């Protein structure tokens, strides 16, 4: 009953190091001692390290179509990036006597929710998300009108390109409407300059894109589109098979910013602290690999994911929680609920069979809580308590997928059988909230 091979289907949590990254890092780690030096050093070894840093900056820009590589700041990953931007934006606007207002979707990563919760004296607007995984655009329109009617208000949107649990991508078309509405004209009439032209209109709305989960798994052109209007973007290397603890923050031009870490003058003082050069090099190798092979990887993952989706759909009582429209979903992610199967039971059953998937959100004790993402999207509690996420990677093969299917079917059968038995075997629990046994 037990596989010998571990079947890893939790790539959205962290993608194992790509082969090219493993091999490239090993080579350098075992090789000369001059490679991983401090790039801030003036000497020759420092210059070698600095070149690696430049190469990563350039490669990232080339891959994602960013024009100015000095706008890329290396940090520890997307969580730090989100913290920097949210806190930096708020600090910067307040320093200028403006009123920062943060807009973010209800299904953002906890890095957004918990940073926002920690910020004091800042207006925050949580945008509801519909069952189809899309933003409530009417809500945005209403709230923006309300917020921007205050001349002092400046808005930052923090939105993910794709959701980590469902793999679904937001439709950003509302942005062009907002641009048409507020982007080019001031809300209050300013005195016209000579010649009848409006004076320069200050920007009122900024966008932070969380592309951590989307990177690599959607076509570059699909990331470039929102990047046209975005002002910030955060990335994590380990989601694309690079090392953990390294990521990038892109800040367009002179967008509002204020660092959260102070110290040395690394990254033009936007992020102090000695560079994680092993991470930087691994990130560089991963980016190069995706630039060369991304299209092949995506095609392969998409094919296997679609096959898996078709086969899982044949299991009775299984429902997908994300759209099957491939243009609105990451090519590697499926989110599903099996009737009568609590997610933690599926997770444990699969784990004991060496099949690794994930579910909902892990609480700090390690227990499984109902998925906040699905709850916020409006799914009923039984769905939010029984959802599992299957996410494929570049090295997933047909055999793995078949193995997963076999074990998933058997675990679902086992759990359902057990539920029936439990209802017969266990004494009546009574209604929850029944209170005293003596009444």
């Amino acid at each position, binding site marked *: 009953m037990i596989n010998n091979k571990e079947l890893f289907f939790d790539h959205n949590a962290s993608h194992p190091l790509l082969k090219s990254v493993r091999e490239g890092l090993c080579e350098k780690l075992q090789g000369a001692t001059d490679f991983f030096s401090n790039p801030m050093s003036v000497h020759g070894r420092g210059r070698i390290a600095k070149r690696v840093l430049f190469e990563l900056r350039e490669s990232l820009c080339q891959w994602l179509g960013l024009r100015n590589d000095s706008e890329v700041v290396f940090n520890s990953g997307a969580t730090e990036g989100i913290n920097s931007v949210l806190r930096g934006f708020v600090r910067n606007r307040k320093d200028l006597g403006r009123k920062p207002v943060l807009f973010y979707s209800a299904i953002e990563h906890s890095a957004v929710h918990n940073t926002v919760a920690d910020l004091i004296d800042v207006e925050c607007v949580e945008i509801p998300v519909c069952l189809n995984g899309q933003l409530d655009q009417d809500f945005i329109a209403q709230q923006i009108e309300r917020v921007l009617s205050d001349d002092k208000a400046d808005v930052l949107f923090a939105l993910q390109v794709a959701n980590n649990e469902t793999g679904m991508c937001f439709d950003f078309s509302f942005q062009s409407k907002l641009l048409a509405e507020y982007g080019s004209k001031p809300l209050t009439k300013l005195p016209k300059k000579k010649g009848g032209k409006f004076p320069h209109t200050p920007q009122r709305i900024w966008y932070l894109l969380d592309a951590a989960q989307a990177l690599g798994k959607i076509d570059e052109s699909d990331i470039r589109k929102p990047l046209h209007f975005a002002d910030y973007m955060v990335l994590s290397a380990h989601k694309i098979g690079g090392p953990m603890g390294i990521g990038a923050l892109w800040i367009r031009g002179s967008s509002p910013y204020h660092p959260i870490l102070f110290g040395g003058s690394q990254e033009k003082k936007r992020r102090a602290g000695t560079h994680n050069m092993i991470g930087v090099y691994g990130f560089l190798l991963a980016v190069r690999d995706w630039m060369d092979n991304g299209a092949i990887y995506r095609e392969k993952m998409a094919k296997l994911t679609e096959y898996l989706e078709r086969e899982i759909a044949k299991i009775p009582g299984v429902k997908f929680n994300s759209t099957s429209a491939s243009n609105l979903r990451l090519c590697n992610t499926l989110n599903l609920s099996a009737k009568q199967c609590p997610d*933690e*039971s599926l997770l*444990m059953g699969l784990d004991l069979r060496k099949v690794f998937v994930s579910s909902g959100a892990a609480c700090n004790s390690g227990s499984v*809580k109902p998925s906040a993402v699905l709850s916020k999207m409006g799914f009923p509690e039984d769905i939010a308590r029984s959802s599992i996420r299957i996410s494929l990677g570049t090295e997933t093969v047909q055999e793995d997928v078949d193995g997963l299917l076999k074990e998933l079917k058997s675990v679902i059968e086992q759990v359902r059988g057990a539920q029936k038995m*439990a209802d017969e075997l266990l004494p009546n*629990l009574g209604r929850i909230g*029944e209170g005293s046994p003596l009444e």
Partner: protein
Amino acid sequence: MAVKKTGYGASILSRERPGDGKSVVVAMSGGVDSSVAALILKEQGYDVIGLALQVTDYSKYRSEEESGTCCSLQDMEDARRVAESIGIPFYVVDTEKSFDGQVVDYFVAEYLQGRTPNPCVMCNTKVKFNSFFRKALELGTDYIATGHYVRKSFDEGLGYCLLRGEDHDKDQSYFLFNLTQRQLEKTLFPVGGMKKEKVRQLAKTHKLPVADKPDSQEICFVPGNNYKKFIEERTPESQRHEGLIVTGKGIVLGNHEGIHNFTVGQRKGLGAALDLASKMGIANTEDFYVTKIDPVRRHVHLGPSRELEKAGLVVGQVNWIVAPKLEKARWMDVKIRYRAETARASVKMMGDNAVEVRFEKPQRAITPGQACVFYDGEVCLGGGWILTSLEVQADERPSEARQ
């Protein structure tokens, strides 16, 4: 009652491997007992899966004192480390919702009714055993196991029997009177045949990270053991049942803020009422206790300690693990508090699941709401919840008759 002992976990040193080819889910709390239980089963050849319940969200109480409780975040971490060192898979199961419903709501409701609940019994049977059974069925394991100090045996005529722990000081059968035959059949108690010192010693020799961890004491979900605050936070003022403090003869000694603040046998917090009593010339107030709580009139009765002595009690919601023949009254050993010695009593049926218990000698501080558990020697026959106590008749009270 003759019982053939075939208990598991007899000796870890015997190198018996009764578990070969069988699987078991061990309920791990992060304490030394359940950790050693897991260790023993692993040594006996079982496929062991460690499971811990997270019964409440401890981050809610982050600022409060956390030590000495069970199932806290630190305990989850301890259990995880033990599982890691034994080499077994380990999971935490969220049972917050059923714990809130089955244990916390019950706990509050009982106090508001003037009774003294026993949430540990409730938690053990309604939350722990049910959750572990469900998980064991889902994972397809053969058994569940716990670190309780109890033993089990099988008797052709009686079925599965729950026996008191070898270590009578640690015996926990009192908490498990609600188990059923089906549950007992599938449950292993690996440390039930050991003394606590032996368990600690095993933990030490196997270098388990919890070898020196102190036993848990308090009610785990009440921060700082402050019952009053805990109950009042969960109860609208209109339901707090304020009323009078009175003597047995009905003399009013003051007001109280709710019967939930009192337990039969209590002495603490009676200061003002007792001062008034002595000023009124009532004798021996230094020997006064809460003798009765009247939830209907919301009266708290104070009286001398002899009034705490009762002839018997009525037990409801009785569960028999081993059904005794009770056509007529039968003598049993009866335990009315976890920490009480058993007392001889005659037990007779009063209906479908209620019994009347009359003690050989009057017993002190019988507390409605606590569990009453029946034994025949080592065998735990079953138990139920104390509904009310029975007064000592004048002719039954020899000490008073002499006065």
